[in-house]
């Protein structure tokens, strides 16, 4: 799977989510944006919503039925939500694991 394709989908999904936020975030959405935690883009509910949207996108556009809500990922301090890039890495890992 092409990492750049996944990254472009993640950024697109993040931009859509940011548009729906009440305080109309004027953030630059790039690979460095922090998804969760202090100064993160999402609160816990927003993160849940984003993960569900991302799963939908992967299913619709790439026919990939993945679960992105792995317990380890959700609880890890240095986990996939520290930046969009690390989240892309996480998805690539899930895709690889599914293929094994």
């Amino acid at each position, binding site marked *: 799977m092409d990492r750049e394709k996944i990254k472009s989908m993640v950024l697109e999904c993040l931009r859509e989510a940011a548009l729906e936020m009440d305080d109309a975030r004027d953030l630059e959405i790039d690979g460095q944006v922090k998804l969760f935690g202090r100064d993160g883009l999402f609160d816990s*509910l927003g993160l849940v*919503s984003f993960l*569900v949207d991302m*799963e*939908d996108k992967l*299913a*619709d556009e790439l026919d990939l*039925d993945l679960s992105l809500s792995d317990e380890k990922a959700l609880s890890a301090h240095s986990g996939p939500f520290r930046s969009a890039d690390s989240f892309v890495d996480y998805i690539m890992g899930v895709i690889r694991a599914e293929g094994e």
Partner: protein
Amino acid sequence: MPDRVILVTGATRGIGRFLAQTLCERGHVVVGCGRSETAWEAKNFEYVSCDVGDEKAVIKMVRSAAKKYGRLDAVLNCAGVASMNHSLLTPGSTMEKILRINVMGTMLVCREAAKAMKKRGGRIVNMSSVAVPMQIEGEAVYAASKAAIETFTKIFAREVAPFGITCNVVAPSPIDTDLIRGVPAEKIDQLVERLGIKRRGTFEDVLAVVDFFLDENSDYISGQTLYLGGVS
């Protein structure tokens, strides 16, 4: 109630079949599932063979339905199995099956349905039984599985409330379905004598509660379990 897209699990028999058929007759689009390969046919009805205890199958079924019809408005989780037996004589395989279909099945369908309903809101109705508050001997495992559904529903309802989704439970008293086919009539009569309203339940009794939970004006009602037959 305008036409809706409604998923009914356990739609091949019993309460699920009755509810699915009634909703079809009212003009709603009903996607029904069951473990059989085929089921009854009707206008507005699509049957999907799906074991609700199979996670991948549930994901596929719910996603396909939501994609095909553009939305999912409501779910009736009617799929369920029962086994009336003394706890000391209940095999582990029976316990596993009851928990897998009743508990895991309900939770998986709720999870996937809520994902599909996230943008537009929706209604989910789960099934319990008066066996929970009546603590009926011989139904320990079955009642425990239904108690799990009630607790799951209370918490799940809170979790999905921000998305405009309600989730409630209807808990029927004994109704003449395949689920209690193996139970002696005398035993059922004894149970009925313990109800507040001393008669067997009917499919229409369940429908009345489902209608209430699905009603447009019931959007402030969630996380509730409604027992039939005057049981509380």
